[in-house]
C-alpha cells in the first residue's frame, strides 16, 4: 500500500521552518564565541525569540517577488533607452541630480549590502539574522538596478563614468562615504539603529520621495521605475528599523539610554547627509516638486513627530537638536548650493544661478529669509558670470571633522555668521560645524581623529599632487567637461543642439 501523502505545510508552519527552523544553538563551541559581536555594545537581550517578524517572508517567496519586479523594471529601462528617453527630460540641468545620486547615493546601497551581510552573520537570533540577510540582497539589487537605470545617461552626459572611483576619493563624496563607514564600523545594534532606523525609517522619505517625484516631474521614467521597484523593499526596510528599536527597548530598560544616544547621533548625521537632497530639491530640479522646507515639515516634523510620540511610552525622547535641524530647513539648501557653486571647478557636476522665475519661486517658498540673505548674493554672482567673471573660490575650505562638509553652515539664529565648535583631544584641535557634530566627536574622539578629511589629505600630498588639476585627475575627472559652470558646458551645448533639431523637425 502506498504511503499516505503528507499534507502540505500551512503558511505559518512553512514560514517557521524556513526561518526560525534553520537556526540552532551550537554545542562544540559556546554561543558567545560564535557570536562575539552582539553583546559588546551594552545592549541586553533576554529572549531572542521576542523578535517579531512583521513581513513573514521566506526566501523562495522573496525570489519570486523580486524577479517579477525585475522583469517589469528592465522592460521599462530597455524601452527608455530604445526610445531615447533622455530627450524627454525637462532640461539637461536635471541630469546633474542624477550625477549626484549615482556618485553619492548608489555606492551607499553597496555599502549597505556589505553592512547587512556583516550584521546578518553576527546576531545569534534567527529573526533579525534572516531580516538582515534579505535586506543585504535588496541593497545589492538596488545598486545594480540604479546603475542600470542611470547608465543610459552616461552615453550622452559627462560626470557619470567613474562613480565608485569618485566615491572613494572626491571631497564632497567623503560626506556620504564617511557616514556609512562610521555606521559599518559600529556594532551590529548601532548599525541597525543608524541605517535601518534613523536613515531608513525616520529620514528615507526625505531622500526617496523627493528624488523619485523629482524624476517623475522631470520626465525621467527610468529612475521613476527604479523608485517604484524599490518601494516595496523600502517598506520592508523601514519595518525592520522600527522592529529593531522596539525589540531593544522592550528587552531591557538599560538599553534605553544607549538607544537614545544612537538616535541622537544618527539623526544628526542623517540630516547632515540630506543636505545634498535639500539643495537638489530647491536648486537642481528644473521642474520643482516642493521646497526642502515643505518636505521637512511634512516628512520630519509631522511624520517624525507622530513616531516619537509613539516611542515616548518607552521613555524615548525626540532626537537631540531636532529643533536646530528644523530651523536649518530654512537655510540648508541655499548654503549647500553656495558651497558647490564656490567649488564647482572641483566637482563632477555642474552648478548655475537659477533663472529669474526660479529665484521668484525660492522667494515665495522662503519669504522670511531668501530675499534678505540669499537672493542678493545669487543676483550678484549671476551678473559676474554674465560679465565673463564666473566666481570660483580658489582656496580649499575648512571641513567639519565629523560630517566632513565644508564649514559653510551658519548659526541658525544668526544666518550671517558661520557656526564654529571646537574640541581638544590629546593636544590637538578638532573643529566641528555644529553642536550635533561636536557631541558625536566628544563621545568617541578616538574614532573621529582618524577621519580622512579630503582637504587635509590633499595638503599631506596623498591625492595625486599639489595642484588642483593633479587632484582632479586623481579623481578621474575629465577636466572642462565633468566640472565647471553649467553655462557653456558640453552638456548644455549638446542639449541645445537637440532642442534646435527638434524645432527644425
Amino acid at each position: 500500500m502506498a504511503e499516505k501523502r503528507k499534507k502540505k505545510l500551512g503558511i505559518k508552519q512553512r514560514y517557521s521552518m524556513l526561518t526560525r527552523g534553520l537556526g540552532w544553538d551550537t554545542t562544540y563551541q559556546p554561543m558567545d564565541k560564535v557570536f562575539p559581536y552582539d553583546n559588546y555594545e551594552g545592549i541586553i537581550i533576554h529572549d531572542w525569540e521576542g523578535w517579531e517578524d512583521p513581513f513573514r517572508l521566506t526566501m523562495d517567496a522573496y525570489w519570486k517577488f523580486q524577479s517579477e519586479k525585475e522583469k517589469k523594471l528592465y522592460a521599462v529601462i530597455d524601452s527608455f533607452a530604445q526610445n531615447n528617453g533622455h530627450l524627454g527630460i525637462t532640461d539637461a540641468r536635471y541630469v546633474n541630480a542624477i550625477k549626484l545620486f549615482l556618485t553619492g547615493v548608489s555606492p551607499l546601497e553597496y555599502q549597505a549590502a556589505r553592512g547587512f551581510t556583516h550584521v546578518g552573520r553576527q546576531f545569534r537570533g534567527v529573526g533579525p539574522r534572516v531580516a538582515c540577510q534579505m535586506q543585504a540582497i535588496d541593497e545589492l539589487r538596488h545598486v545594480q538596478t540604479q546603475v542600470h537605470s542611470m547608465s543610459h545617461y552616461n552615453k550622452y552626459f559627462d560626470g557619470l563614468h567613474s562613480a565608485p572611483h569618485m566615491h572613494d576619493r572626491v571631497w564632497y563624496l567623503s560626506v556620504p562615504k564617511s557616514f556609512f563607514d562610521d555606521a559599518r564600523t559600529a556594532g551590529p545594534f548601532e548599525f541597525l539603529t543608524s541605517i535601518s532606523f534613523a536613515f531608513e525609517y525616520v529620514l528615507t522619505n526625505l531622500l526617496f520621495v523627493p528624488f523619485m517625484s523629482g524624476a517623475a516631474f522631470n520626465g525621467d521614467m527610468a529612475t521613476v521605475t527604479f523608485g517604484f521597484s524599490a518601494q516595496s523593499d523600502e517598506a520592508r526596510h523601514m519595518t525592520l528599523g522600527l522592529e529593531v528599536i522596539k525589540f531593544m527597548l522592550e528587552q531591557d530598560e538599560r538599553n534605553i539610554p544607549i538607544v537614545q544616544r544612537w538616535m541622537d547621533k544618527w539623526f544628526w548625521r542623517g540630516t547632515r547627509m540630506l543636505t545634498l537632497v535639500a539643495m537638489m530639491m530647491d536648486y537642481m530640479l528644473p521642474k520643482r516638486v516642493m521646497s526642502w522646507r515643505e518636505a521637512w515639515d511634512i516628512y520630519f516634523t509631522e511624520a517624525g513627530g507622530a513616531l516619537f510620540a509613539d516611542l515616548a511610552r518607552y521613555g524615548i525622547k525626540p532626537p537631540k537638536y531636532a529643533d536646530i535641524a528644523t530651523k536649518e530647513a530654512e537655510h540648508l539648501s541655499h548654503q549647500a548650493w553656495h558651497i558647490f557653486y564656490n567649488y564647482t571647478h572641483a566637482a563632477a557636476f555642474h552648478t548655475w544661478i537659477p533663472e529669474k522665475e526660479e529665484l521668484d519661486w525660492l522667494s515665495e517658498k522662503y519669504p522670511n529669509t531668501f530675499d534678505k540673505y540669499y537672493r542678493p548674493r545669487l543676483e550678484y554672482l549671476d551678473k559676474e558670470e554674465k560679465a565673463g567673471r564666473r566666481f570660483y573660490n580658489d582656496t580649499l575650505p575648512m571641513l567639519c571633522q565629523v560630517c566632513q562638509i565644508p564649514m559653510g553652515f551658519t548659526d541658525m539664529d544668526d544666518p550671517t555668521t558661520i557656526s564654529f565648535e571646537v574640541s581638544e583631544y590629546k593636544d590637538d584641535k578638532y573643529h566641528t560645524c555644529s553642536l550635533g557634530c561636536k557631541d558625536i566627536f566628544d563621545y568617541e574622539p578616538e574614532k573621529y581623529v582618524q577621519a580622512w578629511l579630503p582637504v587635509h589629505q590633499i595638503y599631506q600630498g596623498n591625492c595625486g599632487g599639489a595642484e588642483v588639476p593633479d587632484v582632479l585627475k586623481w579623481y578621474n575627472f575629465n577636466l572642462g567637461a565633468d566640472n565647471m559652470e553649467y553655462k557653456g558646458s558640453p552638456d548644455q551645448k549638446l542639449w541645445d543642439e537637440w532642442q534646435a533639431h527638434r524645432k527644425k523637425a
Partner: protein
Amino acid sequence: MSVTSIGKYEFEPLDKVENFHGNQLTYINWEQHLLFCAPVCLPLPPEMPFAALVQEVLPGVYNKHPDFEKIDWDAVKWTLDGADLTPDLGKSLADNGLGHKSLIRFWTPGLEGIAGSHS
C-alpha cells in the same frame, strides 16, 4: 569617553602636524562675507611673519570680493581660537600664538558685503 569596541582601540590621528611637511594648518574666516562659502584651510609655515599672512596670503584668498580693497587693516578686529588677538605684524605666526589647526577670524567694520547681505 572612549569608544565602545571589541578590544583595544587606539589609533594615530590622521592630521598630526608632522604630516604637513613643515607647515601647520591654519583656518581663516573673513566674517560677514559669505560670498566665500566657508572658512579656508591653508598649510602655512609657523615661522611666516603675520605681515605676510595679511599682505600676501589673504589677497590671494579674498581679493575677488569688491569689499576686499576697501578694508582698513588698522580697524580690523581679530580673534584667534576664540580669544581676541592684536597681531604683531613683525612677529611670526607661531609667536602670535598660532598653533596647528588654529582658527583666525577677522571682522572688517563698515563693510557689509554684497548689497548689505553680509555675503
